[in-house]
């Protein structure tokens, strides 16, 4: 006897607990196995690139916060870095160090969310709460220095908005000293758990060649063993003065993608510690005119954000408003290979794979 079976469509999202926002995947399923996957982004498209064209250069900064809202500092940085390149502005050393400190704090915060949300995706909600408990300390620190938790708009063209407040350095050091204990806890609760390992190891293995070909970046690329971290490969700001390693995965499976983030947090903490030690005195803002009017021309600059390579392309026509701004959002590009990665895996793996890429929908849809 032959049983007639049929494939069926499952509409995962846009409202779904595990798509990390409003992301939709149209799955063609054979039982529980994915035959075809069609990702549909765009539910959070706000047209930031178009909005930027009618704002002045400084006014774009608050909008960049809303790209990757889990690491708004890094998004600020990517944008102001491009404008500074366009205008040839020298950024004072102290400002660069402050940028490194807050940027790395934002990176840890973003990775904490990624780690916790991944644990929740796999089904362990407690890990999620633990990471958010520790992220709260970073949020406090960022609030202290910028006045806002998620959307700091702290960086300015040529420097930062305000100097480090009293008590910030001590609090920051306390957090950096505490972080290894927290990571130990995550390792015990999440990483070391056999069920977690069974769920993530050897799932959706991504080869280094394919990852490079598909322009993947950030922890997703490095999990496949590709040593490409802009902070090392093309040091911007003052990253060439710090000693740190680039954690690499070996296999390129979901577990590696998850674990690379945990290791990166340790390295970020190391960078922050060095930056706090070396922090020079001096001005926090370079010589920038009050009204920013870059010369006619264009600039493309990249930084390493928590999700991958964040590039900003700015075209100036000599007026106070940018003629064209484009953001190369790492989450968006990293999703380009999702449809192929999902093929042949179970519904539960769809969640695990999507979670391991660590997307933020604000960034994907811009």
């Amino acid at each position, binding site marked *: 006897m032959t049983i007639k079976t049929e494939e069926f469509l499952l509409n995962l999202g846009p409202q779904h607990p595990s798509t990390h926002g409003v992301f939709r995947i149209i799955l063609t399923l054979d039982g529980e196995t994915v035959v075809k996957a069609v990702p549909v982004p765009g539910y959070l498209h706000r047209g930031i690139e178009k909005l930027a064209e009618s704002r002045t250069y400084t006014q774009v900064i608050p909008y960049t916060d809303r790209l990757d809202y889990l690491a708004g500092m890094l998004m600020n940085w990517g944008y102001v870095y491009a404008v500074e390149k366009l205008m040839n502005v020298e950024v004072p050393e102290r400002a660069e160090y402050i940028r490194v400190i807050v940027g790395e704090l934002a990176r840890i915060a973003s990775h904490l969310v990624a780690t916790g949300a991944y644990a929740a995706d796999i089904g362990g909600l407690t890990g999620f709460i633990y990471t958010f408990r520790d992220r709260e300390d970073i949020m406090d620190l960022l609030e202290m220095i910028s006045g806002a938790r998620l959307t700091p708009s702290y960086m300015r063209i040529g420097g930062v908005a305000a100097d480090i407040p009293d008590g910030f350095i001590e609090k920051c050091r306390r957090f950096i000293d505490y972080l290894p204990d927290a990571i130990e806890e995550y390792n015990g609760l999440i990483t070391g758990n056999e069920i977690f390992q069974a769920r993530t190891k050897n799932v959706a293995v991504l080869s280094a060649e394919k990852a490079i070909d598909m322009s993947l970046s950030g922890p997703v690329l490095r999990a496949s063993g590709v040593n*490409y971290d802009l902070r090392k490969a093309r040091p911007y700001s003052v990253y060439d003065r710090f000693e740190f390693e680039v954690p690499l995965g070996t296999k390129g499976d979901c577990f590696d993608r998850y674990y690379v983030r945990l290791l990166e947090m340790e390295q970020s903490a190391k960078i922050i510690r060095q930056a706090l030690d070396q922090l020079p005195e001096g001005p926090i803002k370079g010589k920038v005119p009050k009204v920013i009017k870059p010369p006619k021309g264009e600039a493309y600059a990249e930084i390493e954000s928590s999700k991958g390579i964040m590039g900003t392309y700015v075209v100036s026509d000599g007026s106070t408003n940018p003629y064209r701004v484009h953001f190369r959002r790492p989450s968006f590009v990293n999703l380009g290979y999702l449809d192929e990665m999902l093929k042949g895996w179970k519904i539960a793996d769809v969640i695990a794979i999507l979670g391991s890429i660590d997307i933020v929908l604000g960034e994907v849809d811009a």
Partner: protein
Amino acid sequence: MSQKPLSEIVEELRSKYPGVEVSEQGTLTVPPDTLVAFMRDLKENYGFNYLTNVTAADYMEYFETVYDVSIVGEPHMFHIKTKVDRNSPVVPSMVPIWGGAIWQEREVYDLMGITFKDHPDLRRILLDDAWTEHPLRKDYKYEGGRE
């Protein structure tokens, strides 16, 4: 592998492709008809294996597509531009060379309205499928908004 300095590569490329213009900042402007050959040469003979960014800008008379290519683990980077006719905006797709262009070219198609020849899956990506205009064009006028 040891890389040749960027200036040498530029010189070599300039002699190979006479249509290529080099600006002061090192931006290469490549005519659209030699783009595929040029890019393939870059990837296969010079090791530029990583396409970071694809985007486009509207200059009212013409479009410009912008490509940023680099080498994994190396500081080398090229900023490459192509002028596209505004009345029939068609450029060859980079997907056969770098797979990473797939979503970025869809985004450019969606928001700027530039068609990429030989793209395997050229659909709108961020906007609704029923949308007819391309909002990042400079002549796009939106209605509504507040007050």
